[in-house]
């Protein structure tokens, strides 16, 4: 063995050493956790802290699992609610591996974990959705809703009028509570797999096709009825305004008549007082004057006058006897 061969051997040893160290060391990412197995059997605690770690080379194996929040997407299914409305429900859930040892022993990989989630969440969803009426699933709170379009001058009046409509749906649970119950049903069973179910959310709810058509019909009917209501309201309001107009006209006219008559009456009374005051000084003279006026006015061309010689005008006709 010459010097050259020794050097070659040295390199070989170094390379083998490097390979051994390389296999013994492993890196755990922030998003990962590792279960170490020796000939298929778990040894030691799982590595959950990220960083550089070592194991026995070759005889120990690393099994990586996700540590971050994972997602499960439910397959949309057709579920009848308690009020027998058929709906499509699409859910998704979030979960994480909290016990990698149990997880490794029971489900091994994410694919079969998803399968377990399917098996547990879907039935729980079905159970809960079918035991509540649709409104409980759609609504989240019993927040009052404005179900009719309210604008224009008479909004306030309408609010009052529609008050019973606003509280039509009393919501006892709401969507959040129902999904919480779905979680509660599935959670415990999933813990057996080292899985923590964080939450289940309803992504989509929709009527199935045939129901949707009848819902559309209902919506149309409802809208037509609302439209009719608006028209009737318009006509009613118009009649009201016309009535108001008639009333106001009568009031204005009669009020004016009243004022006019009162004014006239007062004037007449005042005039009568003035006349009485003046003529009262000598009623006989007044009668004389008025009679004279009357003669002047009443006797005309085609009047026939028969005068006796006894009258004052003709008294001197027969002579100026004293």
């Amino acid at each position: 063995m010459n010097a050259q061969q020794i050097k070659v051997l040295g390199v070989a040893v170094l390379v083998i050493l490097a390979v051994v160290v390389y296999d013994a060391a492993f890196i755990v990412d922030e998003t990962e956790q590792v279960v170490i197995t020796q000939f298929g059997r778990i040894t030691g605690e799982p590595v959950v802290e990220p960083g550089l770690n070592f194991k026995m080379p070759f005889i120990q194996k690393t099994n990586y699992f996700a540590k971050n929040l994972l997602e499960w997407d439910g397959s949309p299914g057709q579920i009848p609610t308690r009020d027998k409305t058929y709906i499509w429900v699409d859910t998704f859930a979030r979960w994480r591996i909290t016990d990698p040892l149990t997880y490794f022993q029971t489900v091994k990989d994410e694919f079969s974990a998803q399968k377990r989630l399917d098996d547990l969440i879907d039935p729980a969803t079905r159970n809960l959705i079918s035991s509540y009426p649709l409104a409980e699933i759609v609504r989240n709170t019993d927040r009052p809703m404005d179900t009719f379009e309210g604008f224009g001058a008479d909004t306030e009046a309408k609010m009052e009028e529609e008050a019973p409509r606003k509280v039509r749906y009393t919501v006892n649970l709401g969507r959040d509570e129902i999904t919480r119950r779905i979680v509660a049903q599935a959670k415990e069973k999933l813990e057996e797999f080292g899985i923590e179910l964080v939450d289940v959310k309803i992504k989509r709810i929709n009527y199935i096709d045939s129901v949707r058509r009848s819902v559309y019909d209902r919506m149309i009917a409802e809208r037509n009825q609302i439209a009719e209501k608006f028209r009737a309201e318009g006509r009613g309001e118009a009649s009201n305004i016309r009535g108001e107009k008639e009333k106001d006209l009568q009031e204005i006219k009669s009020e004016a008549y009243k004022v006019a008559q009162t004014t006239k009456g007062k004037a007449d009374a005042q005039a009568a007082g003035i006349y009485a005051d003046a003529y009262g000084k000598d009623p006989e003279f007044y009668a004389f004057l008025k009679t004279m006026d009357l003669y002047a006015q009443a006797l005309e061309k085609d009047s026939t006058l028969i005068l006796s010689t006894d009258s004052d005008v003709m008294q001197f006709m027969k002579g100026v006897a004293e």
Partner: protein
Amino acid sequence: MNWDWEKLRENQQKYEKNKGGSGGPGMPRPPQMDEIFNKFKRFKFPGIFIGIIVLLVLYLGSSTFFTVDRSEVGVVQRFGKFNRLAQPGLNFKLPTGIEKVTKVNVRTPETEEFGVRAADRAGAYGNASESSLMLTGDLNVGVVPWIVQYRRADPRAYLFNVKDVTSLLRNMSEATMRTIVGDRSINEVITERAEIAQAAREMLQAELDNAKAGIAIVNIEMKRTNVPEPVQASFNQVNQAIQEKEQTIYKAKEEYNKAVPLARGEAQRMIKDAEGYAIDRVNRAQGDAAKFLAVFEAYDLARDVTRKRMYLETMGDVLPKIGAKYIIDADQKNVLPLLNLGDGASTLQDRYLQKGE
């Protein structure tokens, strides 16, 4: 190993002899290999080390610096464990294998669309886009398209806490929007878009914070909310009915406004007339009274004479006007034979007048 190389070298030399070093088609090694073998020949084993080390140093050296763009933040992990954040500019790190950098854009907002291009994504249910069809609180169906703009606010949380942040964001956006819409009537969904966007934004941000996804929602923009196409006509009907209602009311108001002010004017005129009458009546009364009193004063001074004068003056005025005048003796009791109503009267009149004068 050693003898293998020796053998290879011999083969190589054989080839070179046969082909004259021209590098023909039978050549099993690229020409660079010659140089390497020459190096091996010359430097022997230390040369291998130097070569490997030079290459390694070059490779590792190039991985010790990196630039971070202005809108990015670099997340540096040492052996997988989070170590530090690298700000924009030139940065240094330990070579590959020890430290790893992931650059995350933290400034440019990303956009996720939901049901915006309804026509493009025909769902399993028919023509309308599935992601925009929702049940409203009054169990109607609304079409609600929207856009979520978000930013990766916390690169560390974004990278490490959630497996597929985009998928979570999409699913959570849909769930949130449906929860919000599920609590509102179809009318509110159509008319109060801003309020819904605000509520959805708050709720979605809370959910993402809860998941520690490192995402900040920049904006939720509601596109045109509507009802499904088959129902749209009836909704327009309602709008039309509202217009009609307003119109009917305005028409009635117009009639009112036409009639009432006119009536008020007429009423005022009636009152003014009455006031005029009153003034006239009183003035006349006062005038008449003044006249009477004036005459009476004069009359009072010489009653008999004045009275007679007035009587005679009146008679003087009256008598000429009268067509037929008969003067009868005071003794004559029966006037009938004299009265011949008609034409004869004038002849009689003439005769008697002549006779009387």
